[in-house]
């Protein structure tokens, strides 16, 4: 398992370095300029961007024979799937931490740019749940559709994540009375739903991958 995680880490790292560089430059701009929409954009791009980097590596295994080779290693197929989901979680946390530093700096210099501090939490929850939904949709589709369709599947999973998140937010807004309690409740529902989808997707992906032939 340790080797599989290292494998995913090395694969993600080179793209993540480039992405981090861009995000640092963007971050300097976001800290310098006081803008609520810029901050929302930064948080979303940061969290989702690192997740995209983590997901995109899945294809790399199949450019070479490494995807097939991995099956001959002393690891179970379920561990290969587990390592991909763990990698996605790790980079989701990296993304959250990364944008968290920027938002903290901005807050430090200019104060909270939102009406309520809880809005910042909602913004992070939305980004994290989008990253989780994206992974939940992508991984099973990848093993069904095949590596040659990975780019289009990545776009589909991103769009699905947006769709699911906004559907949940709309339903929660319709059902609950406006107020801090409803924002908290909505945020919690968002996170629980995405974590549940991620866990179910792991089981489904493992089942699909068990039967894959290379």
């Amino acid at each position, binding site marked *: *398992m*340790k*080797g*599989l*995680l*290292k*494998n995913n880490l*090395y*694969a993600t790292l*080179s793209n993540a370095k480039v992405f981090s560089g861009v995000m640092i430059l963007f971050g300097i701009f976001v800290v310098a300029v006081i803008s609520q929409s810029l901050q929302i954009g930064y948080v979303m791009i940061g969290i989702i961007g690192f997740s995209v980097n983590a997901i995109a590596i899945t294809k*790399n*295994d199949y*450019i*070479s*024979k*490494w995807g*097939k*080779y991995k*099956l*001959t*290693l*002393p*690891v*179970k*197929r379920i561990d290969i799937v587990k390592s991909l989901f763990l990698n996605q979680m790790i980079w989701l946390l990296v993304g959250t931490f990364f944008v968290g530093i920027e938002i903290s700096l901005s807050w430090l210099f200019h104060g909270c740019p939102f009406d309520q501090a809880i809005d910042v939490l909602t913004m992070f929850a939305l980004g994290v749940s989008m990253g989780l939904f994206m992974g939940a949709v992508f991984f099973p589709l990848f093993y069904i559709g095949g590596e040659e369709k990975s780019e289009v599947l990545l776009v589909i999973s991103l769009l699905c994540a947006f769709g699911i998140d906004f559907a949940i937010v709309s339903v929660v807004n319709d059902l609950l009375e406006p107020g801090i309690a409803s924002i908290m409740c909505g945020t919690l529902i968002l996170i629980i739903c995405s974590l549940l989808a991620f866990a179910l997707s792991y089981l489904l992906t493992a089942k699909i991958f*068990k*039967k894959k*032939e*290379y």
Partner: protein
Amino acid sequence: MENILELQRVSKTFPKSNFTLENVTFSLPYGAILGFVGENGAGKTTTIGCILNTITKDSGTIKLFGKEMLDADTDIREKIGVVYDGDNFPAYWTATQLSKIMAGLYTQWDSPLFQKYLEDFHLPAKQKMKHYSRGMAMKLAIAVALAHHPQLLILDEATGGLDPVMRDEMLDVFLEFVQEENHSILLSSHITSDLEKVADYITFIHNGRLIMTVSKNITMLLCAARRANSLR
């Protein structure tokens, strides 16, 4: 004689390509090298896929170290070294990174031994694999397959990308490997001269069917007889 690998009536059908691997039966004894010969599309890679569980066989039994290998049998896979034709590893890795990854996968991974192979095979440890030639990539895959102290090597066209000098060096490495009596090699190759040099047994496969498995000496006798006949 005890066998490290045994295939009994292994079959696999691919309905889309209309290819069938039909009742393949052969065995590889401990301490021996078995050459696996056949034209392109004969079923060599499919057979190896069935052995290594990258492909699910339809019927038959495959025993490795006397046991059918399931997905959970990671201990059996610890004892197998594999080399595929072409790029075995992602191009953006270096050999050093590869060693670190393998150390996290094989309990018996031997980093000093891997470094020794890198030096012996003249492979730069810090260079990304995308800058390796095909021959270098094959040598690296062979080094990886050997560096975790396997008992069985499964090589699918592993000598294909090597020049004749390097091929001879690799064949020497394989011969040295089977000096230990509990070590064996299944060597699939198009290059029959390689098999002549190292194989103890040769298995011929054609159109998904096993033609025969014979000892190399018998094969050479048959070839000599055929040549003698053609000279008459």
